[in-house]
């Protein structure tokens, strides 16, 4: 045998070093990158061993705490993209110009969801109910994607929703599909604030207001290092972050999170800008209900928004017009939204969802 055959020791050493690193490294409880709690060491007992719970637990414990985990996920993405020549990884398409775009699956629950919307609408005879569905990056940036992707058209699905919905629809299909890089993030599944602002230009008139011009706001770049949820899925380490803008108004607001009686005076939460989850800068991540009073608003009218997180960066524009806005997250709001709206005599109701997750959104089923 040649001396060079000793090279087979190298992979053995790689294994031993990774094993040692796994044992020695301190274990984290929470992964900011994936925004989830990591599994803890499983309980050892005769029962858990017998039913396989222990071995399953060990399996996920090892994966969750594996040394250089994020780097390995990134390596896997690069391997799939550049060596295997794949066009997607983990449900994300590799698009042109540094975009990473989530796939869009054929919707399964359209009828059930519209049905819920319609029931909400008929239970609120004294309010105007609007539905606004936001197409996502996959629809806006078709040109950046491989020509042959089989994902269905969100525009057709929006059409179907609008035909079946008995209230008024606000149609954003023309607004956000201009291929402008101002509309969606490259590494996050949300729209950019400038995209939301464009949508505001259509939503405000539909609600009966004159939209304010861009010059009215102080446009501030609050961070340049935003690597959002899509980044967490692909983890390619050398991707640079992108900026988050805030369109800040001079008017005052009182924001009551959940049942709190002590107001905050801003719609923004800069402490999130230091963390991974920077989009939560808008409206402080997740709350079952938020009450926003705007004493200097244009009208005395009130609005209830039932929504997903796309609304978080849109709400600041609407506070210019509504005296009071309630923002509901129906995943966590356990009482009836419709009785709340009736009891408080709210004038307008806006259902706002993005097309990519509406079909699987857990809150959308709890609308009514």
């Amino acid at each position, binding site marked *: 045998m040649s001396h060079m055959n000793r090279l087979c020791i190298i*992979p053995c050493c790689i294994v031993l070093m990774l094993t040692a690193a796994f044992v020695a490294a301190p274990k984290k409880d929470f992964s900011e990158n994936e925004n989830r709690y990591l599994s803890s060491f499983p309980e050892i007992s005769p029962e858990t061993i017998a039913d396989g719970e222990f071995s399953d637990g060990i399996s996920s414990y090892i994966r969750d705490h594996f040394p250089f985990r994020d780097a390995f996920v990134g390596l896997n993405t690069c391997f799939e993209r550049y060596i295997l020549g794949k066009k997607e990884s983990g449900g994300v398409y590799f698009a042109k110009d540094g975009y990473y775009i989530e796939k869009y699956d054929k919707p399964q629950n359209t009828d059930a969801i519209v049905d819920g919307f319609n029931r909400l609408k008929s239970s609120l005879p004294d309010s105007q109910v609007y539905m606004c569905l936001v197409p996502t990056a996959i629809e806006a940036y078709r040109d950046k994607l491989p020509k042959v992707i089989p994902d269905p058209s969100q525009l057709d699905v929006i059409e179907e929703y609008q035909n079946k919905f008995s209230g008024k629809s606000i149609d954003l299909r023309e607004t956000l599909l201009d291929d402008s890089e101002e509309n969606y993030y490259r590494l996050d599944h949300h729209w950019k604030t400038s995209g939301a602002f464009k949508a505001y230009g259509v939503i405000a008139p539909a609600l009966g207001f004159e939209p304010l011009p861009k010059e009215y706001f102080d446009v501030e770049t609050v961070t340049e290092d935003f690597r959002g949820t899509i980044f967490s899925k692909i983890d390619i380490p050398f991707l640079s972050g992108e900026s988050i803008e805030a369109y800040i108004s001079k008017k005052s607001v009182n924001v009551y999170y959940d049942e709190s009686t002590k107001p905050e005076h801003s719609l923004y939460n800069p402490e999130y800008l230091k963390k991974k989850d920077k989009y939560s800068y808008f409206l402080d991540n997740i709350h079952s209900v938020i009450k926003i009073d705007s004493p200097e608003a244009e009208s005395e009218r009130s609005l209830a928004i039932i929504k997903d997180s796309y609304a978080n960066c849109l709400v600041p524009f609407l506070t210019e017009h509504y005296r009071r806005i309630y923002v509901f997250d129906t995943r966590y709001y356990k009482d009836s939204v419709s009785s709340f709206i009736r009891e408080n005599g709210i004038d307008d109701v806006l259902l706002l969802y993005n097309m990519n997750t509406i079909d699987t959104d857990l809150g959308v089923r709890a609308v009514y």
Partner: protein
Amino acid sequence: MVFSCPEFLFFFLPIFLIIYFIAPYRLKNLTLLIASLIFYAWGEPVYVVLLIFSSVVDYTNGRLIEKFGKNKRLRKLFLILSIVINLSLLGVFKYAGFIGENLRIFMPDIKVTALPLPIGISFFTFQTMSYSIDVYRGKIKAEKSFLCFMTYVCMFPQLIAGPIVRFSDISSELHKRAPSFEDFYCGITRFMNGLFKKVLIADELGLLWSVIKGSEYSSLPALTAWLGAVSFTLQLYFDFSGYADMAVGLGRIMGFHYCENFNHPLAAVSVTDFWRRWHMSLSEWFRDYVYIPLGGNRCSVQRHIFNILAVWCLTGIWHGASWNFALWGLYYGVLLVCEKYIWGKSLKKLPSPFAHLYALFIIVVGFAIFDIEGLENILGYFGAMFSGSSLFDKSTLYYIVNYGRVLTAAVIFSAPLYGAYEKMKNGLSSPGKKALALLVEWGLRCFLFAAVIASLISRSYSPFLYFRF
């Protein structure tokens, strides 16, 4: 536990190998046995009892068959006892649910709940049966050391997905094997090659097949259906032969020389040829213990045809308790009979590219039967393959674009390339060139190994296809 999971690669295997190589010579088998029991018990501890039971029964039967060497009736009795017990284990744990389900068609009151399948039961029962039969036939001597015998039955490399190793192949190595660097080197190389086949090719193709298999067959374009069947064929080959490579490699690290299980089956030129190359340890098992005792081909034509059909139905059913496996076996039985008696001679005259195409066509269609459950679904899938609603659609193109490179790699590596490379390397006369070849080879292997780790850490879970069998 499976070989391609982080628990195995980073904990079980290194810890086991360190202890195994440190352990004094007389404790090596014991170390291997204990490790194998832990390996088997991982996730499903109860069935270790089955493994121990099987070892005890066949050890005892082997000894008794030998002890009553002169008493033909007693010898036969113990052989039959061994076979009955092994087949009953299979019957109860593998086929009870299936038999019950089918009996219910006639007797609706029958209640049989299928037990969870003990991993590898089809492999270890076949190994122990071959042992008893070989002792009975006087081919081998009964093993005196229970430790050695149980190590043979439980040895973790081939325990859950073969190859079906005969006792005669490794009995001397069970008693005496000198660790050598050459074995270690060959074993590691083989194991890693198998790992790449499984993780980087089979699992990727599995993604494509699961999408196509899960779609609506009535609207499936013909090309997509073919693409699906081809990708499953390649997936199964790379999965199963990758596993066999890993098993042979692990055995080799410890100094065992297992039999080979595959010899480039997708390069076959006929159905007969395919079965000489695919899952060889199983077809040889059926040949030696069923086909030849039934009379093989040294009998009347009718009897020969019956023998072929019977053996291939059994081969089919061996793969799992479900009708599609029986159908798959019968499909091959019929085709083998046709090759023997109808078109075998003309096939030999066919230019080899056409013979390859003929064999591949049969193999690919066969694996569609193999993996699609229910006659209705199989017919639906064939409908798409042979008279699809359209030739192709946007999805077909996307699958080709997305999986093109993996499919190409799979096709290339299913040809006997690696052997040719090894031959070329060994033929190199200059030591410098040889060293360079090894340097490149191991550099590539380290890179692919990093990709394997990355892939395993990124995904949640990927069990072996051959787990059901």
